[in-house]
């Protein structure tokens, strides 16, 4: 349990990586790192695809990255209509990448491919926990 608190609306209740949500409530955005071989994963994984280990630790994602791409959704799937429009994008932290929404205070006309960005934890008014891309 616990993972139903992730994101605007979660479609997954149970996962071995549910600690991710607890870390968000502590203000941390963390991926997993394999204790055996050091492979790093974001989004977090419970199992290492490189060496098959299930012995994982958590690590904090970098603070500085570049916006690789983005889109502004003017139409939303069922259950997300009230949030429109919202912007989603991919951040590249020199290899490690992250997908999320962009902060609401970032105006669409100010968002550019390649801009410097960071990523922050986010709590919605209904208690859901997430993270968002913000201007660096």
């Amino acid at each position: 349990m616990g993972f139903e608190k992730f994101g605007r609306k979660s479609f997954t209740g149970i996962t071995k990586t549910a600690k991710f949500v607890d870390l968000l409530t502590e203000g941390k955005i963390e991926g997993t790192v394999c204790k055996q071989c050091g492979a790093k994963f974001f989004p977090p994984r419970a199992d290492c695809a490189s060496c098959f280990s299930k012995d994982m630790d958590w690590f904090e994602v970098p603070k500085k990255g570049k916006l690789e791409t983005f889109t502004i959704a003017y139409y939303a799937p069922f259950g997300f209509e009230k949030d429109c429009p919202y912007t989603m994008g991919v951040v590249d932290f020199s290899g490690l990448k992250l997908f999320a929404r962009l902060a609401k205070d970032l105006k669409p006309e100010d968002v550019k491919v390649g801009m410097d960005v960071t990523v922050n934890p986010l709590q919605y008014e209904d208690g859901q926990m997430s993270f968002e891309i913000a201007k660096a």
Partner: protein
Amino acid sequence: MAKDVAVIGVGQSSFVRGYEGSIRELAFEAFREAMQDAGITQKDVGASVFCSAPEYDKQRSPAGVLAEYLGLIPQPTFYIETVCSSSSSGVKVGYSMIKAGLHDIVVVLGFQKMSEITSAESQERMGRGADIQWEAPFGTMMPAYYALYAQAYMAKNGLTHEDLMNVRIKSGTYGQINERAVYRKGVKAADFDASNPDARMAGAVAWPLRVGDACANADGSSCVILANAEKAKAFSKKPVWILGIGAASEAVNMAARPDFAKGLSVGYGAANEAYKMAGITSKDVKVAEVHDCFTIAEIMAYEGLGFAPMGEGKQLIREKATYKEGKIPVNVDGGLLSKGHPIGATGGSQIRTIVLQLRGEAGPMQVPGDPDIGLVHNVGGVGLYGNVTIFGR
């Protein structure tokens, strides 16, 4: 190139909004046409494969239900799913069974009845064809995913909204003359002009993609009948041989995608494998069907298939090289953009178009010059799965 497995029959329902019947009746439309085309009866069929994306209708395990309605029991039947590429995956499975000697003739039937749910519900289901644990909670949907590719690609390669519009205009040119297409109207630049109050295609859906950049949901079915060489020669005057099959997969999560400006990796991977197996290059292809679920996807496919160098796909649309009279005609049946995209039926419909082209039976859509080699590029999800299949006479 080996000529071991042939297409001996093709069929397709009209692609429509709000099909007046259930999925079994929809499936029968394509089946009837393909069986009559092949000139065979159910007792000639060794097995059937049914293909769709689940959750658009209530039927679970549709293969048994449809096999019964089509008269294909007691032969073996089962279900194959790779979202939007389900029926080309089904053809790969059918090919494999014949090549392995398990069956002489296999029916591959793709279907989708999308109109039983609303567009927003459909977007939610399609979005759940991507990563539901880590991405769907942000409110993702197919147009937004393809828009991520469009944004990065346009920024790097100088592709413009006008280029994307011109892909849609091309598709409209052929949608008008394809009587099975859901969208039969031509498309003009004025349709994309935001200052024009009547513009049908100008509204932003997921920027930079607009209404006109997206294909239409539709109800439809397709059927491809495959046979081994002996049966193909016995039943068919014009067998169309499968010369090459390639398939690939990619990480579901956008965070694991290598480079958005380079397009979908499955396009390259599947194409390379298919060309190698067929022993040809992109230059040998005379007519192609590519997965244009969005306008940007057609441009990326030009490059994945080697019709244009990386980043130069825009030149083909600017030079009208992918029109019927051009050097490499692409989607001259209207593509997914105009023909419509009933998910599970799409790959089989693309194959039907290429088979008719190679037989010289494509009517007003026929590519001149008696094409002898055709290609089908069918992508599932956001480049999650990719199938490229090469056909020849």
